[in-house]
């Protein structure tokens, strides 16, 4: 294929993806709207109160929660970026030879240092 054909092919593929996203979004919105039109609506105070095993809800439901969720999200961000670096490496592994292997061993070594540090400091404990 020539260059222009390749470019057209590339753009067509992404166009199909975008088309799928638009259709899926449209499906979601239209289905909810259609259901909204045909359903009954009888709101009542009792029915609308948030479920709390039958007792009256007290205090704000959006209460502060343990900082631990935040720590795991932070660990995830850092590890996720490290994983991202592995993909291009894995794709070109055959082409870059020994240098690539050694390089990645160093990288994963540092990854392991970070991991062991987190483990030893108790950041991976939930309780």
């Amino acid at each position, binding site marked *: 294929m020539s260059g222009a054909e390749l470019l057209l092919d590339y753009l067509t593929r992404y166009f199909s993806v975008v088309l799928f996203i638009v259709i*899926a979004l449209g499906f979601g919105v239209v289905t909810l709207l259609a259901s909204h039109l045909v359903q009954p609506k009888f709101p009542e105070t009792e029915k609308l109160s948030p479920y709390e095993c039958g007792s009256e809800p007290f205090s704000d439901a959006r209460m502060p929660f343990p900082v631990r969720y935040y720590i795991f999200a932070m660990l995830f961000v850092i590890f996720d970026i490290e994983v991202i670096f592995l993909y291009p490496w894995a794709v070109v592994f055959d082409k870059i030879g020994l240098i690539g*292997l050694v390089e990645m061993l160093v990288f994963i070594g540092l990854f392991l240092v970070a991991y062991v540090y987190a483990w030893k400091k108790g950041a991976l404990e939930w309780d």
Partner: protein
Amino acid sequence: MVEVGIKIGLSITQIAVVMGVVLLTVMFLTLAERKVIGWMQDRMGPMEVGPYGILQPIADGLKLFFKEDIVPAGANKFLFSLAPILALVPALIGFAVIPFGPNLTVEIFGVQFQPFVISDINIGILYILAFTSIGAYGVILGGWASNSKYSLLGGLRAAAQVISYELNVGLAIVGVILLAGSLSLVKITEAQSGWFWNWFIFAPPFPQLFAFVVYVISSVAETNRMPFDLPEAESELVAGFFTEYSGMRFAFFFLAEYANMILVSCIAATLFLGGWNAPAPFLQFHGSWANLAWASGVFWFTVKVYFFLFLFFWLRATLPRLRYDQLMRFGWKVMLPIALGNILITAIAAYLFPRG
């Protein structure tokens, strides 16, 4: 200009067919799950609607469609309506890059067309990873918007669980990418053609068996299925993040869960079990039947996907639910080192014994 129109028309038809098949499979799965678990527990499952209860999913769907959408007092109405859509859409659009059958190109009205994959992009597997992580938004926003303590806790738990196990999924697939040398799902499948020992789960020089186990367990956790269904654990959280949801919005979360199950099954079949490839070359149409090879390809792909779907049901019927601290410890302290070790060993083995 006519060509462009035909192309778009074909694309839309293809997308509609894929979405239709996925939604029909979801309907079928809701019945199949109740039936399979029923049989495993020596019950009959649904029997009332239609012969042997086969019309049950239609009855359920219609009922949910005509039910009242209750928005609890104090809820954020906009986010409450948005969350189900944010949960469902990522689960559906992942199917855009899944190859359901052989990589054929046919010509229809003078337009090149690949019938079994909507879009074979170079970064297929990363595209799926990217959108599965977006699915977490629907859950976490749905939990937060509901103004209910159970919902909030369920949403938070789901988000923490999904991101933890997503890391393991990301690590588990590196070995496969390394052996295939591509991120495109079509190319990954083509690299596994021939006999079943070329599938990446058995592939020389280093079988991706460990990666496969890590992937399957992590994807069960990512879809919030038993035994990892902590976000919706009914004994402690009522129904988790969708406690306050009713009607079609509830149905959307339900659809999203099952569509995600199908999606991860498709990925597992593609990455580890050779996708559309038959276990042995003589088990597909060949010789004078060679122009029907696509049919056997689609058949084998379906068989593999249903194998995983059955596994989901089986796990649900067999295993008790984990505790949340066990779940997190298992993800971070057991699955992650195994996946990392698999990458190291695969890389060294692939360097010492280069393929082909």
